């Protein structure tokens, strides 16, 4: 399990090709292609109902796509049975929108669960290791013995992050990580993700509506529209493009302020 940046910088961590996801006769993805470059933070954006969560569920192997191919770390995950997928799942950390912490377990036990399940680590070292993730995720040490019901919204997200980081994943998938957080907490969360990405050699893909996360917290933005990834580039570049849907998204009243902040407005109005 290599986790340090020995990963080939140019090989994508994950590659989706020709993905189709349908609910009955209603397709949210059709011929969707997406490469996730290593070591970057990718923001997955798009209007409500554009299939961000479905795409993340496909990527984390929770949902079998109706057609298409999912490659994770260079192997074709769609060909695998559930047993072999477990090995891949260990390398993917997932943070659910609502946290999805196990309510019957304390924060520390939540983090210990995946480590205990997938390694032979026991006893004090297990506690220490899990504790280090709790603190790493920015939680105070005394919150480790609390139950999820006793945590605030922001702390739930951090606890869920600690659990997602438990096995040192190579790919971290975040579904709306800053939704429901106040702007300060959201900014701190973005900083934390950035810091972890830099030091742990993570690759991050996050579905988000948060303009701060899109403009400041991400390296690349993947824009989901018309059932596929319409464009993928840094936010400043996307905001300057001519495509009407991109313009509508990035030049909506609030987003436009950010665009101006980043000097996009001048170039595109010309």
């Amino acid at each position, binding site marked *: 399990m290599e*986790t*340090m940046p020995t990963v080939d910088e140019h090989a994508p961590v994950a590659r989706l090709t020709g993905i189709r996801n349908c609910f009955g006769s209603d397709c949210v993805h059709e011929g969707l292609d997406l490469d996730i470059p290593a070591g970057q933070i990718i923001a997955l954006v798009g209007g409500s109902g554009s299939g961000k969560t479905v795409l993340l569920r496909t990527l984390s192997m929770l949902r079998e796509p109706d057609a298409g191919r999912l490659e994770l770390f260079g192997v074709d995950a769609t060909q695998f049975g559930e047993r072999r997928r477990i090995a891949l799942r260990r390398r993917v950390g997932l943070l659910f929108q609502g946290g999805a912490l196990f309510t019957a377990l304390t924060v520390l036990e939540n983090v210990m669960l995946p480590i205990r399940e997938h390694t032979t*680590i026991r006893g004090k070292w297990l506690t220490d290791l899990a*504790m280090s993730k709790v603190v*790493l995720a920015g939680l105070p*040490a005394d919150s480790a013995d609390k139950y999820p019901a006793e945590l605030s919204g922001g702390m739930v997200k951090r606890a869920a992050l600690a659990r997602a980081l438990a096995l040192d994943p190579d790919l971290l998938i975040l579904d709306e990580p800053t939704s429901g957080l106040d702007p300060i907490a959201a900014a701190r969360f973005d900083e934390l993700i950035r810091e972890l990405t*830099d*030091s*742990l050699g993570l690759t991050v893909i996050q579905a988000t509506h948060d303009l701060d996360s899109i403009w400041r917290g991400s390296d690349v933005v993947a824009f989901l529209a018309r059932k596929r990834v319409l464009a993928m580039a840094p936010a400043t570049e996307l905001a300057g493009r001519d495509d009407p849907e991109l313009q509508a998204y990035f030049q909506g009243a609030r987003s436009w302020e950010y665009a101006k902040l980043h000097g996009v407005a001048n170039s595109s109005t010309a």
Partner: protein
Amino acid sequence: MPANESITASDTGNGPMLEPARGSEGELCLHFSGPWDLAHLPSEPDAEARLATWLASHPEVANGRQATVEGALSALDSAGALVIARIVDGLEHDGRQVNLDALPAGQRKLIDLLKGRLAPRERPKPRRTGWLAMIGRATVGKLIETNAFLAFVGELSMQGGRLLLMPWRVRWREVVAEIEAAGLRALGIVGLLSFLIGMVMAYQAGATLSDYGANILIVNLVAILTLREMGPLLTAIIVAGRTGSSYTAQLGTMRITEEIDALRAIGISPFEMLILPKVIALMIVLPLLTVFANILGLLGGAVVAAYRFEVSFAVYFDRLPEVVNLTTLLLGLVKTPVFAIVIALIGCMQGMRVAGSALAVGRATTVSVVQATFLVIVIDALFSVLFNLMGY
């Protein structure tokens, strides 16, 4: 003693390695190599303890003020970094200046990140409660439980009493829906179990009575037992397990998903909307189900009496009105609305008291069924004493 002695953290030799040495200027020099990750670390890393032992036997470097960390780690994840970060932290704690500059930038960054956020080594032990405190807590818990039940009964009486004066405000649609769920859909299980219990009673009665040639008395035994006790009690227990538990689970889940609070916020009383319809529905349904159970129980007895003990259907049903009358039936039925109130109240109260997690819903459902069944049997016993005193 060689200046360069390695502290291997694993026995295989190609695992994580730490070689402490005395540097050229007398400083402590730690050379890390090999893979420092979860897959290669031993299940209880003791590098720090071994380093302490090594330092104890090398006093010439043990008291230095400087330390350098160097090496080429073939792999480093956050677990390995945690071990190294703790070693560095320990050295700094002893007053050394630790220099990590010789490490590759990425690995240094990771070690720094973990060193900056080290959790306290010793976690405070959860305080154990003594047996006296546990008894006290359990007692107070029971008192609170009793108090909560009384408060719940009080609130229901207030709201229920008010609504009785304005019956058009009762949510009859909900009542009808609850009647279907608790009554109509329970017919199968109640009927089948009553039939079987009727058969069992007839078998047991017949086995003894036939020895004396008193087969005909099977009718007396089965009829009186069914109408006065088995019908009402069995039905109440089935309903407590089937409907009471579903009330708790439904309301408990609605508490956790904040649906109850949402109702309040919209200006709808959860009592009026959710609880009262359940209580009313169960008070209507339980007597009806009991009558149904009585009929099936008598039938079950009749079948066994006819095919096993030579008491034909004609004789059985001919004799039935002679041994039981309307009073027998009513003495059984009069208990059922009380059972219904107890089952619905306990089910709803336990549901409304759920707080916190999915686990709490499961626990509340168990408590609800246990309490409801317990109270149903206790109340049945009280009724028996009461009826006996009254001469029935």
